[in-house]
């Protein structure tokens, strides 16, 4: 079985903050059992955009290689995140440090409000988004599936809004297709569902809601075979997108036969 790099159906490219990406699947680089597996999984996913985190460099093991030793920045678009930030001030600090690394001005903005659920602190998120947008960042904001918050983030100038399917790392899949569909229907900027995708069907169902893309990490890193799962996710993302563009049939609560009701034998 072969897969082509371009989907075999008509689709417009994914454009975020003026940049065009071929793949609608964005992938995280955390939690893989080793770097070799991570690299193979990223390749298999077909992703253009990969997320990275900003952390202190280890001073005791100065020979430890940073992730950039394994990721080719000319092959992947590095999207730095503000993971682990519980305040707007922290998130802004990390965003500025990330930008100083010199790759691009994009930031996946996370301001977390609760340690157990990793749900966002909406007030902090909006404050950080507004400030970072003013400082020239291209802000992609991780958020909950509340429409009003999504609208405020768009008003604040975010280049993309990223509602969660379910909590980060939970693998629970898309818990509320209605809220995600509503957000997609009302926003002008791209909607990328981030967090909670667990397996291929989750990815497919989420893309069928019409969203512009998906971001996942744990689904790959914690699969028994991350490379195989990355391949599955690539197919699922394309399948979900194709199904959405195809325009699904209406649901009905009674049956309607698929074969003719005339010409039956007497």
């Amino acid at each position, binding site marked *: 079985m072969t897969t082509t790099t371009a989907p075999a159906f008509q689709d417009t490219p994914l454009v975020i903050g003026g940049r065009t990406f071929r793949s609608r699947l964005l992938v995280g680089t955390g939690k893989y059992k080793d770097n070799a597996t991570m690299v193979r999984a990223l390749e298999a996913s077909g992703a253009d955009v990969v997320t*990275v*985190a900003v952390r*202190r*460099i280890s*001073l005791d093991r100065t020979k430890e290689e*940073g992730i950039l030793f394994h990721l080719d920045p000319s092959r992947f678009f590095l999207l730095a995140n503000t993971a682990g930030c519980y305040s707007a001030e922290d998130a802004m600090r990390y965003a500025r440090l*990330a930008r100083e690394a010199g790759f691009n001005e994009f930031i996946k903005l996370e301001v977390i409000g609760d340690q157990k659920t990793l749900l966002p602190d909406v007030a902090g998120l909006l404050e950080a988004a507004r400030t970072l947008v003013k400082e020239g960042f291209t802000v992609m904001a991780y958020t909950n599936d509340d429409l009003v918050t999504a609208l405020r983030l768009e008003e604040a100038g975010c280049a993309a809004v990223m509602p969660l399917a379910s909590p*980060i790392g939970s693998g629970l899949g898309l818990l509320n297709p209605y809220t995600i569909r509503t957000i997609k229907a009302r926003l002008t900027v791209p909607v990328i569902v981030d967090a909670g995708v667990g397996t291929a069907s989750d990815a497919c169902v989420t893309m069928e809601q019409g969203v512009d893309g998906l971001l996942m990490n744990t689904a790959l890193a914690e699969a028994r075979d991350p490379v195989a799962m990355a391949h599955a996710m690539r197919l699922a993302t394309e399948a979900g997108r194709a199904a959405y563009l195809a325009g699904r049939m209406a649901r009905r609560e009674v049956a309607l036969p698929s074969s003719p009701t005339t010409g039956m034998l007497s």
Partner: protein
Amino acid sequence: MIAQLPRLHAVTDDRVAARGGLVERAAEMASVAGPRLAVHLRTRALTGAEQLGLARSLGAALAVHGSWLVVNDRVDVARAVGARAVALGRAGLSARDARRVAPEIPVARSVHDAAEARAAEGENADFLIAGAIFETASHPGGPVAGPALIEVAAAGGLQVIAIGGLTPANTPAALDAGAWGVAGIRALWDAADPAEAARAFLAVLPAAASIAVTVNGESRAMAEGITLSGLLEQLGLDPRAVVVEHNRHIVRRDGLAQVTLAGGDVVELVHFVGGG
């Protein structure tokens, strides 16, 4: 008073510069002396472009260890390469004119007697280079002023670097007379092992104060005068592999050698790791 003014100054002359291997010898001394060393580029024979090229190479090699580059006379070269100070000779520009060109660079004046010392103070020089204190191979038979010149020069309150025949053996006498530090030409450049020669001087010069700096959450003792560039070098970190935050301000890579650490500073060194 420049708190971080190095105690040991290695002054070049045209003979030393022409011999080749200048940058390598300077790097050897800098690797043992760090912020306690200043290397003076002093030449009459080189063209402006040649001086600029040499100053740039020297400066880069020294900055890695936190050592100073001092450019003699050519204020324009000093400014172009970001030298830590400019040293003006008797026949050179006045301190005032030098500051017109490079207001941000400290100015040293060479002084040979009391009158010149007072004149330099009048011009608001930042520190003095007083000599010749002892008999020197560079100017055999020339006037020797003795440690009294150091006392006279230091009387006005400016720091004095003693030059002319200084050795580790007579350095204590220069310090007793009020010198802040000493300068050498042949004693350092002509030594079989310049690093060892530098070490011998440093052993009799006041030690750099130690400052406590927090790096990635841990308190570390560092030599006073160390720059962010020197800190990375000491930690074995490639400046291209880290982003540096100093007291909550991000410092760009090209500015690391210009930031000197002070006690109580907080430094964060970060990089990209895997994450979702």
